[in-house]
């Protein structure tokens, strides 16, 4: 099986109380995997463990195994900054940094020491095109990122993450605050991107999972209930709780 992220008996606790328990999940390369589940089911926690942003909260405890491209995420020798470049994340709320559109996109490459103007220009155009934003901002790259509309800001954040050239794109409810047109543009970008990287999409919107993903994983109360091709999960789930959630009986 061609998995890029593998969790084996993976568990997470904060200050002793378990948030995730015994998760066994293989996320396949060049696919869009949606993670769905009600609030508090641990889906965002799982996502934030992949790039270790979870480290920022105090009292984190991790059990079991989690690997990205065959490398143990929680090994002591892991270079966390490098891990976060390999697993780029886009947050639920768009957070452009207070600087120009251009400077937002090249933030990551500049941290790595890329200085060549030509190289940076190339990165900006390529990633903004990939994020379906180029046509809207190509004439105002020097405008503050904070001046864009919410939907444009989120695509700017996507371009900024793509500039890291990640292997995996972690999207944490990226469309939760967006209008349908901006949402469609983000979904369009995801479809184009999956030939070159793997997308993990946490979403509260079951319809988005059905429409935009190849595979779906259903989390409930800190456990993985089931994972499979999206078409199967939505037409013939193996577990009755999955069915209940999808048809809107709870959550």
């Amino acid at each position, binding site marked *: 099986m061609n998995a890029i992220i593998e969790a084996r008996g993976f568990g997470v606790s904060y200050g002793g109380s378990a948030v995730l328990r015994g998760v066994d999940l293989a996320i396949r390369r060049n696919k869009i995997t949606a993670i769905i589940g009600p609030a508090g089911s641990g889906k965002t926690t799982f996502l934030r463990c992949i*790039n270790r*942003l979870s480290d*920022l909260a*105090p009292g984190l405890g991790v059990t079991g195994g989690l690997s990205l491209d065959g490398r143990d995420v929680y090994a002591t020798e892991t270079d966390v*900054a*490098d891990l*976060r*470049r390999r697993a*780029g*994340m886009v*947050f639920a*709320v768009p*957070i452009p*940094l*207070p*600087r*120009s559109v251009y*400077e937002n996109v090249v*933030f*990551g490459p500049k*941290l*790595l020491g890329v200085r060549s103007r030509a190289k940076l220009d190339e990165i900006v155009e390529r990633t903004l095109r990939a994020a379906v934003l180029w046509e809207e901002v190509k004439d105002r790259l020097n405008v*503050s990122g*904070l001046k864009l509309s919410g939907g444009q800001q989120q695509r700017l954040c996507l371009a*900024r*993450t793509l500039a*890291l050239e990640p292997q995996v794109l972690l999207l944490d409810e990226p469309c939760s605050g967006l209008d349908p047109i901006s949402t469609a543009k983000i979904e369009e970008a995801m479809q184009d991107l999956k030939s070159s990287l793997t997308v993990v999409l946490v979403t509260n919107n079951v319809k988005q999972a059905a429409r935009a993903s190849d595979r779906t994983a259903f989390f409930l109360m800190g456990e993985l209930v089931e994972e499979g091709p999206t078409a199967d999960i939505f037409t013939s789930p193996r577990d009755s709780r999955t069915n209940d959630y999808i048809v809107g009986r709870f959550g």
Partner: protein
Amino acid sequence: MRIPPKVVHYSVLTFLWAVTLGTVGTLCVIIGWVLVKGLPAITPGFLFSAPEGAGREGGIFPVIVGTLWVILGAVLIATPLGVGTSIFLVEYTRENWVTRVIRFGADCLAGIPSIIFGLFGYVFFVVALGFRWSILSGALTLALMSLPTIIRTSEVALRAVPPQYREVSYALGATRWQMVLRVVIPGSLPGIVTGIVLAMGRSMSETAAVIFTAGTVLPDSVPTSPGDSVRTLAVHFYLLAVEGLSEKNAFGTAAILVLSILVINVGAYTLMHRFLARYR
């Protein structure tokens, strides 16, 4: 009977206008009075020549230069220490008893009268370390006095940077230091600069702490080394006034003091805005 909302609104508005005018008016009257009395004394000769007859005649050039050295020294010493401490407190530690002790210490320092700093500077820098009455002793003492202001204002400014900016920086592969340098410091610079400028203004107008440490002797030539004793503008003004040597020159000195503080404020904010133009 209920007072009509309109009456309440206009009464409050009138009251607020009155107190604001009162505050700003008092400030303008004080500064205006100093300038009106002092400006006529300010001539190129006054600015650029040495004093004669203990300040009765001549100018204040050595005093201006001495003041600049002391203030510059104090800021150069206090800024890295103060800003560094606040970065450590906000970015490199979690809240615990150590940070509380440091913060409590800074608050205590802020409450100590400047003459106590002067005494400490005299005992420690002037006598124990053998720096004598000098620019160095004065600068070190003023730096200590400025530290609490710089630490606390910088700390508030650093905390005001949205935590999401830190999270985003980490998510984009920044190390902690890269995050601090590229996101947190630019974001908090206005507050940090305000603290430094406040501290400079206080240092500039300080008398008690520098009398003990930088000296009071009126130099007849421009100081050339950190070991030279100087008399600062504030001290010069104080001595001219209390000894009744020259009211004209006293007010001239006071006007220079007020104008310098104004120039420092405007200069610092202009520089800062030029730097921050990239970050909005």
